[in-house]
């Protein structure tokens, strides 16, 4: 009797394993690479400000106040999706939001800002994407939280949602101050 049930039991065990595996991986983005920068100082960079090519911003210029660094480009559809959420956060005044215009063109970026609004305190302009490599940026949208001391505290790959702000960004901001 037992030997006849064995294949069935083996099948049920394998099916359970598959079920658990699928459940463990669903609802989470497996392609998102965790940032090796978390807990480390923000990379040294100097980048011009969008529309003000002569105004160069360095890492040290941003120290003193925590800020959210939001990577976007006018070519990026998902950036439009998160834009209202980012705008809402910037309006609330809870956090300074710095834009990082990634591999974009000035004209296209300006048009995009006109159309959807400009929530950013400041927009860094990285058209070649060279500095982005130092940040470990590999697409848009990506968002970093940097504390007042200039330490990277948190990173998210993909659009920001109100839940992410409530459950991740704001708690991280409070715990590190």
């Amino acid at each position, binding site marked *: 009797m037992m030997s006849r049930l064995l294949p069935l039991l083996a099948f049920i065990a394998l099916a359970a394993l598959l079920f658990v595996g699928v459940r463990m991986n669903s609802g989470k983005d497996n392609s998102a*690479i965790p940032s*090796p920068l978390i807990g480390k100082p923000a990379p040294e960079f100097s980048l011009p400000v969008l529309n003000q090519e002569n105004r160069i911003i360095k890492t040290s210029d941003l120290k003193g106040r925590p800020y959210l660094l939001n990577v976007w480009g006018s070519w990026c559809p998902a950036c439009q999706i998160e834009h209202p959420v980012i705008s809402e956060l910037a309006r609330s005044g809870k956090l300074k939001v710095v834009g990082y215009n990634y591999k974009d063109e000035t004209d296209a970026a300006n048009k995009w800002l006109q159309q959807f609004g400009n929530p950013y305190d400041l927009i860094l302009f990285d058209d070649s*994407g060279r500095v*982005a*490599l*130092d*940040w*470990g940026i*590999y*697409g848009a949208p990506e968002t970093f939280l940097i504390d007042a001391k200039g330490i990277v505290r948190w990173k998210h790959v993909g659009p920001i949602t109100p839940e992410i702000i409530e459950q991740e960004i704001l708690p991280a901001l409070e715990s590190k101050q």
Partner: protein
Amino acid sequence: MKKIIFLALLLFSGNLLAIDPTDYRSAEEEQRFRSLAAELRCVMCQNQSLADSNAMIAKDLRLELLTLIREGKSDDEIKQFMVSRYTDFVLYKPPMRPGTWLLWFGPFLVLFVGIGIIFMIVRKRSAAMPVIKTQEDNGQEW
């Protein structure tokens, strides 16, 4: 006719252009670039190597790779550069560390456990079945 051939060639060249961003200065440089690009993983499309991918970031990283080679960086330094920015994800061959021991030695562990189990089964069976002396086995050689 020439035009058609040219257009046909153009059709297939897009891919190649994307993968080789620049002219190489020497054969060694090309060789190093290709072997490193094949060993590094595209961070955007993780089933492709840096050499195979057409993603924007892969192009940027290929360009950076060539720059680093030209700056005279060693293979290890270049890999370290990539890992410090994009974690071990960028390496197709994970580094040997306590954290990756299971990954490296796990298959051998499974192999040895399997050999052990087979060994035990064989021993049990040979103990349960006494050797039967067959009739043919009567000392004659054949």
